[in-house]
Structure formats: structure tokens, C-alpha cells
């Protein structure tokens, strides 16, 4: 079913909206929530809560992109459920993502911080748009969708070494962009 038709179902207050959403995007949203929480039951709860939030948001909202709309809700809920201390001790996968992302940040001592989140997002958005499509997808799959390195390497046909190297280069490039803009987080 096309996204517009699914959104129409929400606007018509038809419960088929949830079924259609789950059929089309359920697996992908479950994957995203699991990549963050590393718990199947928690991931399922996050996705169910996301459907509920979507039901309450449409109407009045009518998103231009349905998957990102749902994924942003799911990601926010999953992050809210994340036990950071447990993640640090038991689930190194997501802390690896965090540690890698920290590479992108300029040293705090070398910049002054007067930046709003929106301004930093704009710099990151411009950086991503300057990349070739494949590199942009790799970066976002790793750092937005939190996909494990092994899965990502397999899907893109890279060796893990090559993937790590590419991600490393991209983080360095982003860091350079942020430094040029004087950004601190």
C-alpha cells in the first residue's frame, strides 16, 4: 500500500491504518528499536507505542515521508527506554556507535559554544548532502539506524575493515566540517 493511502487511513480513523503500517514498516521499525535497546520485548513495546503515537498524531499531522516520521518516533521512544548504564556494561554494540560518533566532535577546548541544536543539525545535513549517495546511506544506516557493522558490511558488500575505514573517513570529514563552523556540542 502506498504511504499516502496509509496516511489516509489514519485520517479516516480506520484501525486498518495500524495493520497497514505494521505490514509495511513493522519489521524495519522493530529492527531500529532492537538496534538501540538490544531487547526484543522492549523493541516490540517501543514499536507498539510508536503506532499509538502515530495514531494520535494523524490527524492533524500529514507527514511527507511516512517511514522517517514513524522511525523518528520509534527512535525517540527506544532512546528513552535505553538503560545507559546497562548498555555500557552489557551491550557494547550501541556504546560502540556512541564512541564512534564522539570522533566527529571537535575537541571541546578548541571551540566556543553558542550553537543551537538546529544550527548543528543544519551543518550535519549539509555535510550529508555533499556526500555521494552510497556513503551518505552508509553513514546514516550506522549512525541514525544504529545498524551493526557486520550487517552493514554484508548488505553493502564491503569487508568489515573497508567499512570501518570508510566510516572513519566520513567521521573525520564531518569533524572537519564542524570544526570549520566552530561547532561544539
Amino acid at each position, binding site marked *: 500500500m502506498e504511504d499516502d493511502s496509509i496516511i489516509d487511513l489514519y485520517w479516516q480513523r480506520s484501525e486498518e491504518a495500524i495493520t497497514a503500517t505494521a505490514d509495511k514498516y513493522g519489521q*524495519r521499525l522493530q529492527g531500529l528499536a532492537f538496534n538501540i535497546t538490544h531487547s526484543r520485548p522492549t523493541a516490540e513495546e517501543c514499536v507498539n507505542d510508536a503506532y499509538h503515537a502515530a495514531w494520535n498524531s494523524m490527524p492533524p499531522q500529514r*507527514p*511527507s*515521508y511516512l*517511514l*522517517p*516520521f514513524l522511525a*523518528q518516533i520509534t*527512535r*525517540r521512544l527506544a*532512546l528513552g527506554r535505553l538503560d*545507559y548504564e546497562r*548498555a*555500557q556494561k552489557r551491550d557494547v554494540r550501541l*556504546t560502540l*556507535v*556512541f*564512541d*564512534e*560518533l*564522539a*570522533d*566527529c*566532535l571537535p575537541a571541546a577546548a578548541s571551540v566556543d559554544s553558542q550553537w543551537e*541544536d538546529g544550527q*548543528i*543539525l543544519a551543518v*550535519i*545535513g*549539509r*555535510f*550529508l*548532502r*555533499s*556526500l*555521494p*549517495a*552510497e*556513503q*551518505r*546511506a552508509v*553513514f*546514516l*544506516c550506522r*549512525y*541514525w*539506524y544504529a545498524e551493526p557493522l557486520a550487517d552493514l558490511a*554484508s*548488505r*553493502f*558488500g564491503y569487508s568489515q*575493515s*573497508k567499512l*570501518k*575505514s570508510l566510516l*572513519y*573517513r566520513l567521521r*573525520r*570529514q564531518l569533524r572537519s566540517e564542524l570544526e570549520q563552523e566552530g561547532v561544539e*556540542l
Partner: protein
Amino acid sequence: MNDNSQRGAALFALIQDLEPDLIQAAADFVPPCPSVRRQRRRGLIGLVAGVLLLAGACAYAVVEWSDLFRDHFQPSTVVIEQLRDSVEAVGATAVCGDYILTINQTLGDSYTIYLDLDITFPASQPLWELLQRDAAGEWDLSILPWVDFLPGRIAYEEVAGLNPEQLEDFLQGRRFGGGGSLNIEAAGADMETNTLSCLISFTKRGDSISSYGPWLTLLVREINDPSGQAVAPGPYVISWQPQNISPQLEYVISDSGQEVGQVLLSSFRLEVELYPSEQRAAAYAAAKAEQGELTFGSKPYSYPQVSVTLLDGSHFTGPGSFGGTASDDGYVNYRLIFNEILLLDQVASIQVGDYTIIVNSGE
């Protein structure tokens, strides 16, 4: 969670609100099938042999290299034949107010491009008034364009009259990621046509020029005299679709079954990438403990000994400039841009530190 992880977690949360089309595009992206990638790698290596066989077997039409390229590269007949797909007679012209940019020819591949560029000045600004003669009576070609290479297509009307600050705003988000190496030289001046000839080269770092799409733009910000004063205020632009193709050899460096790096070799450049490793990070830590603060050149893995050996046993002497990065965890990116053209069928081996890559046994 440690400070580093917390900073990363904060960024992970912040990018939550990236624009939805970016998130959608990442989800929709379908990578090329892995098996196609592997076939392509073999295909590239095979292409060299294919080109060489054709060169020996039949005569075909080749673009006659421009005088500027001939003067600079002094190509032999074999070079001209083997690089017949690397040279393109572009003939693109852009009228930018009173100035005219003409790209006569380009030479290169998807990472490196040389431009034979003419800049025609308006009659009201005769070149003989801008240039001095040296003691031998030759024109001192001391005015140079300040240029950038950009992906995509830009029309002159989009940049005409922009001051430097406005131009910077315009260029936001339009540049290549990762940058590249640029070289500019004025190569001649024709007083009758009031035209300055320039040889400009650009080598993209990391990914290829072509991965950004079919169009490439040369932006001339301004043209300066030796004191840095603008003799032509700019900006001027010319966009075209480069078609230059050259075989490239790709090799994976393995150590004890682990992929530790890669080498890319073309007729124009050699790029070596060594991936981060615990071994090199440990070597760095040991050197630092012994020597104190390390500069780029003193890092134990900064400059792997890199050389290209030809079939006659000699070393290729063409490398003209190098650049690269090396970080504390052992990541090395090392790039040589040749000032001579390397014939790939003449390469016997590539040495990268302790690793030897056999390219051609000569049999």
C-alpha cells in the same frame, strides 16, 4: 558511561531530527550486489590487458593531444595510444560577462583531471599590459586564476556579481566531500587573441569525482597578479560532463588472512590506505613514549616506504607530489600524484612498507 560515550550519545540523540528525506533516502538505498562489485574489480584488472591487446592489434582514431598537454607530459606514441580514452576534446565555452572560459581538452580519469583551459580577456584589458617581459624577452606568466572544482552544474547567472561573502554562502553544501589536491600554472599567452592558457589539475581525495554525478564545474573566483591583486574580479564558471576513462588497478593488502589496507594505482596516481590496527596504534604509543610528542613525519607508520617497480627493474620516477593523513590509531592514507604518466602494463610490482604486490610478472 564514560565522557566520550556520553558525547557520542548526545550527538546520536541530536541527529534524531535530521531532515526526513535524508532518513528516507538512507532506508531506500539499494547497494550494488556484492557479487557485482567483485566482478567489477576483476573486470578493471582485465580491462588493462584488453586495452593493451587492442593497441597492438589495430589502428583506431585517437584524439590528438593539445600542444599544452604535449609540452607538459611529452607523451610517447605508446602513451597516446594506451590513454586514448583518458583524453577528451571537450571544446566547452562559457561566456562570463566580459571574460570567456574555454576548456580545450581534459586528460585523466574519474579521480584526476587535467584541464587545458583558455581564459580570454576583454579587449579593454590587453594582456600585454598585465604581463611583464623577463630579461630574455619572454612573457612572465605571473597572473593566475584562483579556482575551485565543484560537483554539479552551475550557470554563470547564479554567481555573477557575487562578492566573496555571498559566494561563500552560495557554495555552502556544494563542495566535494573530502576535498582534493589542486595545481594551477599559467602555460602561455596569446597577445593576438588576448588569451591566457592554463594547465590546471585536480585529484579528488577518497571517493571519485564521478561518484558525485555527471557534471563538474570549474569556478574561477578571480584572477590575480603576483601581489595578490585581482586583475579580473570573478567569479566565473564553466560546467561540463567529463568523459575521461583510464584503467585503475585495485589491490587488497592482506596480512595473516586479515584485510589491512588497499592500493589503487592508475596512470596518474597511487593511493594507499592502511586501516586502523592495534599493531600500528601500539607502535605509535611506543614511539611516543620514547620520543615525546610526535609530528606527522616522525610517527612510526606515517610514511610507509612506497615504490613502483617497472618490468625493466627500475623504479618509476614520476611521483610529483604526495599528501595524506595518519592518525594515532594507525590509519594511514597516502597519496602520490604523478607528474609523468605511468603505463600500467609496465608495472611489475608495488611496494608498500613490508607488503609487496605483484602486478605483472612480465611473462
